[in-house]
């Protein structure tokens, strides 16, 4: 079955009424429990290396996309687990975000099945496009409450030919300031870890200049993500070292306990209500899921 046929079948499955939920590989929270469950089409439709784009079903495992792109020396900016659709619906970035940017910037075009059971296209196939409102960014991070992703065209990037993690006892903000575009700067209150990619001579030069020691792996990341303004990360100096790993310059803090619920202002809550009312008036898609409450 072609991807387009699979999308048609997927839309029929979602249908126009009744509660319905969607799952990928269940690595990012899985479906809403107790509700009829559907899965998005999977499979890579094409890769265009000279365009740096790939089209695939939303149910395609990230690992498959990564392996296929590796053959062309490319990759996508999506953490390598679960499905593409799940990763986009949740919208969490990878530890390389400091240099590689957020997940939301990777989607060029997507199709989703709406609450009415119709296939809706957003965005366009080219790497640059401002035709119409940005429904792609609306969908990324919307956790399947506005529509179920069916297929996507993603922007790829060159896969680094040389990449190396380093550690250092130096202050992470000093490293952030003196290194040119580090891919990641992590800190646990005592140790800093830095990921660099690029030309091997440049890596050596940067490492020597900043007294970095090569290491095999980055630290293990505690399971919960806290999202804070990067300027407030200095407050972590007052916390016991080793209880967190912070992404310096980004503002994600990985901790063992979950983040407290967000406290959005009433205008933001109202906008969310209005958007959801427009896109899913009956609240049938992933029913009960409150995007402002999940972390």
């Amino acid at each position, binding site marked *: 079955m072609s991807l387009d046929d699979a999308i048609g079948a997927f839309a029929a499955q979602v249908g126009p009424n009744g509660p319905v939920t969607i799952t990928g590989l269940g690595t990012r929270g899985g479906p809403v429990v107790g509700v009829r469950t559907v899965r998005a089409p999977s499979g890579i439709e094409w890769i265009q290396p000279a*365009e740096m784009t790939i089209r695939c079903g939303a149910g395609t495992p990230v690992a498959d996309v990564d392996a296929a792109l590796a053959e062309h*020396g490319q990759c996508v900016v999506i953490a390598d687990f679960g499905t593409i659709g799940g990763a986009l619906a949740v919208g969490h970035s990878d530890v390389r975000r400091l240099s590689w940017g957020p997940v939301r910037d990777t989607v060029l075009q997507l199709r989703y099945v709406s609450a009415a059971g119709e296939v809706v296209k957003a965005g366009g196939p080219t790497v640059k496009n401002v035709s119409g*409102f*940005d429904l792609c*960014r609306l969908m990324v991070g919307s956790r399947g409450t506005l529509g179920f992703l069916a297929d996507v065209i993603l922007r790829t990037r060159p896969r680094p030919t040389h990449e190396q993690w380093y550690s250092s006892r130096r202050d992470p903000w000093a490293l*952030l300031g003196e290194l*040119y575009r580090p891919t990641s700067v992590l800190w646990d209150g005592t140790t800093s870890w830095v990921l660099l990619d690029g030309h091997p001579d440049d890596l050596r030069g940067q490492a020597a200049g900043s007294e970095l020691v090569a290491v095999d792996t980055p630290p293990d990341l505690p399971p919960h993500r806290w999202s804070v303004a990067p*300027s407030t990360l200095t407050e972590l100096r007052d916390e016991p070292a080793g209880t967190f790993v912070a992404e310096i310059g980004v503002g994600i803090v990985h901790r063992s306990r979950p983040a407290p619920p967000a406290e959005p202002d009433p205008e933001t809550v109202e*906008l969310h209500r209005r958007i959801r009312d427009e896109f899913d008036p009956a609240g049938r898609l992933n029913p009960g899921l409150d995007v402002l409450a999940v972390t």
Partner: protein
Amino acid sequence: MTVDAVARSHVAAPHGTTPLVARLRSVLRPDQVRDGVSEVNLYRHDASNLVGHASVVCFAESTDDVRAIVLVANEFGVPFVARGSGTGLAGGAVPMGGAIVVSTAKMNRILSVDPVNRVAWVEPGVLNLDLSKQIAHLGVHFAPDPSSQQTCSIGGNVANNSGGPHCLADGVTSAHIHAVEAVLPDGSVTVLGGEEPEPAGYDLRGVFVGSEGMFGVATKVCVKLMANPPGVATMLLDFADVADGAQLVSDIIADGIVPAAVEMMDQLCLRAVEAFIHAGLPVEQAAALLIEVVGLPAAVAAQVERIGELAGRRNVGGVRVAADDAERALLWKGRKSAFGAIARIKPNYYLHDTVVPRHKLPEVLEQVYEIAARHELLVLNVFHAGDGNLHPLLVYDAREPGVVERVHAAGDEIVRVSVAAGGVLSGEHGIGLEKRDLMPLMFSEIDLAAQADLRRAFDPRCLSNPDKVLPSPAGCGDIHSIPEGAWV
């Protein structure tokens, strides 16, 4: 409010001011509200050829001012339109239906700069280049650099999700905006997005960027700053055949190199610019590519060498690498003064903006030349080749009978061949009024209805810059008026 009531609110009271103007003067300082005919007429258009109709122009100085204006607009049921510098090319800031023009020109302060975490808060009227100039001493810059950067505003950049030569590697405006404080169309004020990387809920920031003034007025913008690169190499490569140059663009990307910028100029453009700035450009050649690679020294050197090799396989003529900052500046001046230079050829120009897949560049460029020739028009091409973003520039003299119609007909064909080649309507100028009625070339009715849903969620009364982007009356009951100068 009925159409009649809207009309009445524009009718001057005996002492010369309309009730609308009087009300605006009661919520702002009177000198911030301008309704003189000649002054208001200045705000009937942007940098496109489209002309609308404004009832009054307000110069906001703060979020509170914008909020006060928007509340008055709601009270009178009169539309409003945010305006930055008016350099938009798609009619985005053209006032429709006697709208209140909300100028942000006086909201031009840089509010805070954090050079460590590389973020800044600015007011929307800050000019793009002013921002980068004022923070240059901190070793950082704001990456989006539209060719209009000396005059366009950050608020306009946000609304149009603008691009520029250096957006190839670093992304267009949306990738550089963390948060927007906005006055929503109902007058409420909120911050969309945030300095934190993953604010809870929908990406309302992402949705606002590129919404062309239809989701409210940005009153503060939190921008991402980038570290200035330690090394830069700027190359000018010329070709006897446009197709060779266009092909090289794909070759470079396929090789795993994403330069900071890849710009193309064709012969007519090279000649116009050379006559203007005398930079020693290869005027005998069919086209030239201006390529810039940035970064650490070994990477820059390796990429310059590799690009040279790839160019050799595409019959490159000359390869000129700028020897110093002065030569680099001169080459960029050539690129950025193209618009000034063409004024010497003909008094008028129409600048198009479409995107095609990079590998279709040779073929579509060929079609663009054919279309222009068939309509007996001169076309210059100067564009962001790296991301396939074409900018065919039709130059003409509007006094010639029938020429304007030919320009419009040719433009329409250029847009259609671009979309037919797998491309899109606009890469950076936006849809506005100009391409509103071409949206069905890319989107089905169902797709457009979803965009209208989003618009309605932000602006149920359709007061914020109505009549733009969406082709058919989008559930707002607004009957589209046809602006002067429309060609679709």
